[in-house]
């Protein structure tokens, strides 16, 4: 009964002529698609570059936005600023993950005892999901120091990060909650019937499945956080955007902004590709078969 449930004999197999033919066809089709994609990309790129470089304003734009010398000279400062953005993303990302999870769990708790907890989580989510991020950052960054409270930091970097954490936790909490609620009730029933408590059921059965399910959406939020970390430059924190601004102010050449943009892209594009890959992998074999 163990290995050979189906009584399948292990005969040596070599693909039949029909199968070989199908494989050859699939290979040819793949090659054809790659060639078509490459050719059409080249054509589009050529047309665009001809149109742009032939336009009358191009020499001036090229000088103010794409000056190679300016790019080289501003690069170290912008890169240093960018390094701050990366650190903000990693640290805030971790804190946001923890807060978001806590908020999601708080909102899914049942029973009258937990009413205050649920109410708090709901109010928090409504508030910070409803406020524009830039407003939260401005209010914290300029409001808190003005209050002059004893023992509360006036460090704008810290306050800006707090703003990011508050806003993003509200979003991430909602994503995770959606994941938790998407797990079929029969999974809870099965876990509870084995004697697991409500908390154990969440921890070992519901949340692992929920997080897996919403991972692409969470990674998407991380990419977005990486971009939005640039917003704290309005508080004067020297991140990539602010560093580029300082470099630009010297001679009104905008190339440093382009440098900052390229740096952001160099991180967000691979992250986006990774997110897509995770999402695709989730479909996984066995779930939808060949469809």
């Amino acid at each position, binding site marked *: 009964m163990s290995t050979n449930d189906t009584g399948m004999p292990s005969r040596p197999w070599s693909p039949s002529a029909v199968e070989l033919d199908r494989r050859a066809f699939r290979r040819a089709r793949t090659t054809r698609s790659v060639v078509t994609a490459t050719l059409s990309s080249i054509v589009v790129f050529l047309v665009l570059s001809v149109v742009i470089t032939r336009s009358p304003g191009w020499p001036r734009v090229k000088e103010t936005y794409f000056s190679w010398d300016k790019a080289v000279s501003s690069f170290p400062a912008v890169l240093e600023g960018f390094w701050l953005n990366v650190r903000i993303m990693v640290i805030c990302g971790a804190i946001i993950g923890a807060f978001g999870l806590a908020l999601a769990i708080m909102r899914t708790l049942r029973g009258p005892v937990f009413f205050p907890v649920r109410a708090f989580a709901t109010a928090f989510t409504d508030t910070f999901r409803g406020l524009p991020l830039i407003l939260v950052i401005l209010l914290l960054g300029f409001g808190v120091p003005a209050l002059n409270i004893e023992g509360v930091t006036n460090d704008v970097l810290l306050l800006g990060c707090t703003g990011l954490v508050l806003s993003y936790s509200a979003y991430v909490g909602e994503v995770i909650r959606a994941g938790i609620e998407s797990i079929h009730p029969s999974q809870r029933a099965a876990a509870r*019937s084995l004697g697991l408590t409500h908390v154990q059921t969440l921890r070992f059965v519901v949340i692992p499945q929920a997080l897996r399910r919403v991972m692409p959406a969470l990674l998407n939020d991380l990419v977005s956080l990486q971009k939005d970390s640039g917003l704290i430059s309005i508080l004067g924190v020297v991140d990539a955007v602010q560093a580029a601004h300082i470099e630009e102010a010297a001679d009104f050449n905008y190339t440093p902004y382009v440098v900052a943009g390229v740096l952001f892209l160099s991180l967000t594009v691979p992250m986006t590709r990774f997110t897509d890959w995770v999402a695709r992998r989730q479909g996984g074999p066995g779930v939808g078969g060949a469809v």
Partner: protein
Amino acid sequence: MSDLSVVGLRKAFGNHVVLSGFDLSVAHGECVVLIGASGSGKSTVLRCVNLLETVDDGVIRLGGDDVTDPRADPDAVRARMGIVFQSYNLFPHLRVLDNITLAPVRVHGVARAAAERAAREMLDRVGLADKASARPDELSGGQQQRVAIARALVNSPELMLLDEVTSALDPELVGEVLELLVDLKRDGMTMLLATHEMAFAKQVADRVCFLHGGRVHEEGPPSELLVAPREDRTRQFLSRFVSL
């Protein structure tokens, strides 16, 4: 001394009354089979006994303890029973082995090594020793169902509840599961199961209960109830199963 006794159980969903004045007792080591039309409340009985539903009225006793008493810890009560559902409900994110060890390790405080040993023995018993590291979605329906039974058995429950455990399986796989249940019965396991398969009921049941009108309409040993029912309603229900 009966292991499970249900007295005057009532359960309604909204104003749809499913069970009312429902009485049932299952003796230690006995195998009782619930039959009845779709919607007659077989699953509801099992879910109430497992405290997955709160009852509207009545008392359920397990080994003499009133489990419907709100002061009783429902998790502790559930830990004393095993339930297997029609739809298996394995945890898709865990390997077969981890599905089985989850409750022993987390609920019963068994050391992981010991739990894994017990789980492998149980898998061997249900004929799936080689599937320990498979994911549930890599298994066939019958294999998943056997894992679900192993998962319930590994906690050494006092009572096994089985809800149409074979209805998603082809006849040959039904045989596999049936064999396993006959085996369990021989080991003295107390079982309460719901099924639509009369042949199945005939083979494992000590007693068959026909559910109708929210209570046990007629009961008896399979050789009597399935062959020569006394009540019209029972006869009418059974007449749809030609192969008896």
